[in-house]
């Protein structure tokens, strides 16, 4: 297993947010984390990249206790695309992607040709090579997400954590991001909102409600009409209507 959360409980300002969560991510798996607003998805993700320390439970990344890893080593194993974007200081795209090399560099290390190549390849991988010299703040929402994913790729980690990567994107960009992430082949845990998209793109899903993981498994196992009714308070109805897919020429 790449990432294991074992009975993880989390508090913010002494207020319990997540209770005894168990999550496992295997090599190359794309796993979705679902649940209504305020259910604790983001909080749970934050614990997996050390922004929040569990009040109980154990987190292991590639078999090692996360607490015992140095921040640098942890960042070499886990890359994050958070909701907060590096907007205020007018970094260029190239500078944002280059930040991904931070955990691989000691203070006096120079940026090498190898680093430059890794960053260039990461940008190409997300089809954003042409944005290199643009200011990050001038990008559209979809472009920003792709650049942040490129930064995560430049980190060369084996685990990727995404916090609602499709937020505020139109339908085509949502699908592009999901297809891109799925095609990376990196173990991924992504907090997602759209149930249909999660079911279509993820290998496995976890469903959270009120700070607890109430179901985990294949999309068909997790997203039953009864459970959706219980968690979201909506009825799941099967109808024939338009579904949206990326066109093959894109």
């Amino acid at each position, binding site marked *: 297993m790449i990432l294991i959360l074992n009975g993880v409980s989390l508090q913010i300002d002494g207020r319990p947010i997540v209770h005894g969560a168990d999550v496992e991510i295997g090599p190359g798996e794309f796993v979705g984390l679902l649940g209504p607003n305020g259910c604790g998805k983001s909080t749970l993700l934050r614990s997996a*990249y050390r*922004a929040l320390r569990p009040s109980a439970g154990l987190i292991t990344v590639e078999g090692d206790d996360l607490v015992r890893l140095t*921040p640098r080593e942890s960042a*070499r194993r886990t890359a994050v695309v958070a909701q907060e974007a*590096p907007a205020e200081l*007018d970094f260029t795209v190239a500078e944002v992607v280059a*930040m991904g090399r931070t955990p691989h560099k000691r203070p006096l290390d120079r940026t090498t040709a190898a680093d430059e190549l890794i960053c260039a390849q990461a940008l190409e991988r997300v089809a954003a090579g*042409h944005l290199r010299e643009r*200011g990050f703040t001038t990008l559209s929402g979809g472009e920003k997400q792709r650049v942040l994913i490129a930064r995560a790729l430049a980190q060369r980690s084996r685990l990727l954590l995404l916090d609602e990567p499709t937020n505020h994107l139109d339908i085509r960009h949502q699908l592009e991001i999901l297809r891109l992430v799925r095609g990376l082949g990196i173990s991924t845990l992504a907090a997602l909102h759209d149930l249909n998209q999660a079911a279509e793109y993820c290998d496995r899903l976890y469903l959270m409600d009120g700070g607890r993981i109430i179901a985990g498994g294949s999309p068909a196992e997790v997203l039953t009409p009864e459970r959706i009714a219980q968690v979201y308070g909506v009825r799941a109805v099967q109808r024939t209507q338009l579904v949206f897919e990326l066109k093959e020429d894109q």
Partner: protein
Amino acid sequence: MGQPTASRRGYAARVSDRLWPVITVLVLATVASTLFAVTIGAVQVGPAQVWGIVADRLVPGSVTPVWTPAQAQIVWDYRLPRALLALLVGAGLAVVGTVLQALVRNPLADPFLLGVSSGASLGAVLVFILGSSVLGGLSLSVAAFLGALLALVLVYVLAQRSGRITPARLVLAGVALAYLFQAVYSYVLQQAQSGRAAQQVLFWLMGSLGGARWEMLPIPTVVLLAGVAYLLVQHRPLNALGSGEESAISLGINVTALRVRLFLLTSLLVGVLVATSGAIAFVGLIVPHTARMLVGADHRRVLPVSALLGAVFLQLVDVAARTVAAPQELALSIVTAVFGVPFFLWLLRRRG
């Protein structure tokens, strides 16, 4: 590859190619502005005479004097240390502004907005008025440093909630504390026995390099060079921090430890600078921002450019302060405000 249009490329485009040309121009401007600053004043001294006086002092007897002893004394004892101090203070304030802006991730941050300058001023005023013996022998620099550190820690504590700070809260806390510190040192000044001493302190508080002497230069020089060297080594953590707290954590930065080190460093710098020259406004705000426009936001490039730009800027500001209302000298903050306020308003509107 699609060619982005000029308007969408933004000013950050291709900035990485500009570093060395920009640094070359700034180094030349530093030398030229310093030479200019030394020649100008009530007693005219030509550039050739300045070079001669400096060469003669460094290697006595190497140049045939084409100047009067009075000119030599004015250049060597007064104008040169003052010009060098202007470079140090300008560079230092610009570097502090650059670091604070990354630290709080807000281009509006500067030593004034965060109350740091006022804290340092309070420390300095207490030593000035009460005398160092009352404060247990604290020197002006140490008192200014402690005041700056106290201000930064208080601002940070007030602005954070469970370890996270928002820029808005930070600026509000900084402005509020700045007023508090100003009130305290104004009270001390008002209660001072000698009205004349109080007036001198008030003038000095607004920024003045008038007291520059050679023996004032070593400490700021060492602190500034060591500080910039450390910050350059830390350019990647600084970039990561500038991209946001969570983002920095996910890049493997120990954010808490880095913040503490940066707080200490900026407090030390502000303390030393305020102790030598009073509190000079706006340099720490305008200069880093201009540096980023020139060479992008990467701190490996911003820090040296910001330092040089700050040095040149304050040199010219000091020349203006000495000449505009000669023989009276203007406080430096009056001159920087003339440039700073329009710039600040432009920045506010641009980000609106």
